């Protein structure tokens, strides 16, 4: 079976997951993003590539941040952007989802950016629109499954500061179990040839069999951070702090919160990343988040360029 993300020429048709996305496709996205970074520093922060195209942001799960970055990216490509926040509480979710898609397709949409609480929803939509060859789907986060543009912007950031993936040790720290960000990044790092990818976290927050993704597993922060080039801190979601998986936020911070002392165990030039929004004092200490090794805000800037690259490449294929 053909990769549902690629067209018959092997080019990107939809962006659904980084799992199984070929090396050259990821490289094309990262290289193209580099050309978009400069555009935001100009007088006119726009290029005419998607002039006359309609991008629909379909957010079945709320996320103002992610939606905004997609909106800015699409607008900087000169697309028309329509934002729809769709309530998922309706009982017949599956049916109404595809009905919504049919309606929007009939309005001649060119691209759907989909955020959904259910894993696989963007795949379902991509399959559903296969009769419309010029309609593209971008996964903006589905359930616990994938968040490919976040993974790509993390890859972009790592490459920007560290150049060559094939020489790096990268640690992903925290709630890997519930994190689509972690999953996407791990797939991306492995595809790009990163020899040492580590996950660090308590047993309760690491998926069983995570080693099969090609990562080394650590439960001890000091051990896991030693000699790392890049540290990716994951957000600990509020509901997990209250649940049975963790003793308390304070306890978590003591063991897995990134402080200057723990950071000192990584390489002296290691970078610190976080997909945001941060819980200061839970997974990361302010001294680290605001410190010289933090590249958390550049991640946001690169995120716009990476999303522009994804949409531009899709629209051209």
């Amino acid at each position: 079976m053909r990769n549902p993300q690629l067209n018959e020429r092997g080019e990107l048709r939809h962006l659904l997951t980084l799992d199984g996305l070929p090396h050259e496709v990821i490289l094309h996205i990262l290289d193209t993003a580099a050309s978009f970074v400069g555009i935001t520093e100009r007088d006119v922060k726009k290029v005419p590539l998607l002039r006359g195209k309609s991008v629909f942001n379909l957010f079945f799960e709320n996320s103002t941040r992610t939606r905004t970055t997609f909106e800015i990216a699409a607008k900087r490509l000169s697309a028309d952007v329509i934002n729809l926040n769709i309530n998922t509480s309706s009982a017949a979710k599956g049916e109404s989802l595809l009905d919504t898609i049919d309606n929007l397709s009939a309005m001649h949409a060119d691209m759907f950016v989909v955020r959904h609480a259910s894993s696989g929803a963007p795949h379902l939509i991509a399959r559903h629109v296969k009769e419309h060859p010029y309609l593209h789907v971008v996964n903006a986060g589905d359930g616990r499954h994938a968040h490919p543009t976040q993974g790509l912007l993390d890859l972009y950031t790592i490459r920007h500061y560290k150049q060559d993936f094939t020489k790096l040790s990268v640690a992903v720290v925290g709630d890997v179990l519930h994190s689509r960000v972690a999953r996407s990044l791990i797939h991306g790092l492995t595809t790009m040839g990163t020899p040492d990818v580590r996950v660090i976290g308590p047993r309760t927050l690491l998926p069983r069999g995570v080693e099969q993704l090609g990562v080394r597993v650590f439960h001890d922060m000091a051990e896991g951070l030693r000699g790392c080039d890049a540290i990716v801190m994951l957000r600990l979601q509020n509901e997990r702090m209250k649940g049975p998986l963790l003793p308390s936020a304070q306890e978590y911070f003591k063991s897995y919160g990134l402080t200057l002392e723990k950071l000192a165990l990584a390489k002296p030039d290691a970078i610190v990343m976080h997909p945001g929004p941060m819980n200061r004092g839970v997974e990361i200490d302010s001294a680290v988040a605001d410190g010289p090794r933090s590249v958390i805000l550049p991640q946001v800037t690169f995120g716009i360029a990476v999303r522009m690259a994804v949409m531009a490449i899709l629209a051209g294929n």
Partner: protein
Amino acid sequence: MQLPDAEALCASLVAQLRGRVTPDTAIVGIVTGGAWLAERLRRELGLETPMGTLDVSFYRDDFGKSGLKKRVRPSQVPFEVEGRLLLLVDDVLYTGRTIRAAMNELFDYGRPARIDLAVLVDRGGRELPIGAQYCGAQFEVPAGRVLVLERDGEDAAARLLLQLSDHRRTRGPG
């Protein structure tokens, strides 16, 4: 088809431009051949402003047909465009569509006082009302054949040569 010597055409361009460009003229080359030529012209003419390079991929009118090429390079315009005299440089002038895209891109950096165009070869076949103020040579090349500038080395001093081929890229503009 006998092609002229690119080095001789380059020397002719330098002679045409000498005295016509002021030291504060900013030179902008279109990647890749135009940027190589621009690098050379800037050096020979002793221009002080840093050179700009444009990759016009985001402004091409055939994006809907051809998509985005594999290697888009970042455009670099390291000077204030507003009110400036610009010398736009490309290796081969053909349909004029690349030049249109380049001018559109330049205007997104600011409003230049004037843009002149210098090309090594004008091969005819224009599809837009665009002409070059400075031109190394003018000769017809049959449609379907590709005329490009090559460079024998990596630095600005490397020898330039013209190449003709039948090779047409299947995807993406070159």
